């Protein structure tokens, strides 16, 4: 197989990526012997597999994803949740911790319209809307902290290879950060400055996700933040 575009470079839809014997990865398609890109993204070549990592795009649910969702409506047996996908999700009452058989009044006491919940996608296919569960560690109603929203396509970069970026962020800012695959990110800081810097860092990652040396630049930005220096000094023994 001959790769015709440069790996990790930005490719456009319809751009010729490779020719010859190959495996088709995500966001690419073939005509005869040739593989083309189907979106704007970064070319990735993994052995024989050619794929394009999109730089932008909405969130499409996958089973097992952790997502942040906003409760839109309360039905007879559960909640309708906006998970920032082109499909509205359902969270059945049976998929929450708590006593069985809640009535409508009790449902709104659990999650009310407008509440943010962390949930996991239980099932989703082309013919039915996503089904969620709020059972499990770290899932359920979010009552405090800062909620921000970035493009879902940038979440892998926020997490980093084997979680390297997100661990560094948590450590350097002293914040708890919960990441939803759909772009919802929750930040709780021990200090308002830590929280502010964490939020700034997350937006910076979103903007510069496709560049090199990002992890170091983020670490530098956090360390240089004026009040962070005080925070670090305060925390020193």
């Amino acid at each position, binding site marked *: 197989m001959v790769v015709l575009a440069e790996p990790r470079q*930005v*490719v*456009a*839809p*319809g*751009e*010729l990526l490779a020719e010859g014997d190959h495996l088709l990865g995500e*966001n690419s*398609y073939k*005509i005869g012997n040739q593989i*083309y890109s*189907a*979106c*704007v993204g970064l070319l990735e070549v993994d052995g024989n597999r050619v794929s394009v990592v*999109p*730089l*932008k*795009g*909405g969130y*499409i649910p996958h089973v097992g994803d952790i997502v942040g969702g906003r409760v839109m409506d309360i039905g007879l047996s559960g909640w309708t949740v906006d998970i920032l996908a*082109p*499909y*509205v999700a359902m969270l059945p009452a049976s998929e929450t911790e708590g006593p069985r058989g809640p009535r409508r009044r009790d449902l709104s006491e659990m999650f009310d319209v407008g509440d943010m919940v962390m949930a996991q996608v239980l099932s989703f296919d*082309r*013919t039915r809307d996503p089904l969620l569960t709020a059972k499990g560690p770290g899932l359920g109603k979010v009552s405090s902290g800062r909620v921000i929203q970035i493009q879902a*396509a940038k979440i892998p970069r926020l997490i980093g290879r084997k979680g390297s970026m997100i661990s560094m962020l948590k450590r350097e800012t002293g914040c708890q950060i919960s990441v939803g695959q759909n772009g919802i990110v929750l930040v709780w800081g021990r200090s308002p400055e830590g929280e502010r810097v964490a939020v700034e860092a997350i937006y910076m990652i979103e*903007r*510069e996700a*496709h*560049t*090199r*040396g*990002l992890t*170091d*630049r983020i670490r530098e930005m956090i360390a240089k933040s004026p009040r962070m220096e005080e925070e670090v000094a305060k925390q020193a023994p």
Partner: protein
Amino acid sequence: MQNKHPEKLLDEKGLRVDGRRLDQLRPVRLEVGTLDKANGSAYIEQGKNKILAAVYGPREAHPKHIALPDRAVIRCRYHMAPFSVDERKSPAPSRRELELSKVIRESLEPTVLTDLYPRTTIDLFVEILQSDGGSRCAGITAASLALADAGIPMRELVAACAVGKVQGQLALDLSDIEDKQGEADLPVAYMPNSNLVTLLQMDGILTLPEFEKGLNMAIEACKTLHTMQREALKNKYSQIREVAEEKEEPEVIA
């Protein structure tokens, strides 16, 4: 201000009213990601045309009954601002705008991989801020960039350009005057990889040889525009990359 009724559309040297040769495109400027709220957007200037295209989607279908079970619905609105033409145009949609909304949508349907998003809509808005002939073609060129900018998977970008006839000669990329006073107008949209013409309209009179020659002229222009579209898309990211990586220190390989 330009003379609205020039005596001739071609001068003795065969040059057009704006000084172009018969086979010359007007100057084109493309910008990607112009708007903040839209999922994808692009802006084109082609001659005096100024056109903004934006995409929202894929998103939930509203009302639900318009959704299709196995693919996304594409909705398109071509609309001219009241101040975009010489005589102020009422903001209410005209029959021409409704027809153009349809043909523009149909020029982009072949490229969007709609079966990846069943039961959703992809909404496309083409706003003509200033119009000077060939706005539906420039609108398609911008619209396909806006779709790509939104991250919607597609086979390839679609570019469009019109060819016309002025004083018996085939001319590329007609301006408004040439369109109004010329003898034919042939707008074409084209997908280069697939070799597919996805918009084709004609009004006026063209012989068969004129049509063939004109079509080829338009397709060549579409290929040029296609290259510019690709560059504009990639430029958006390379600018951010340059600013960011300029501060980069060499990576230490442990």
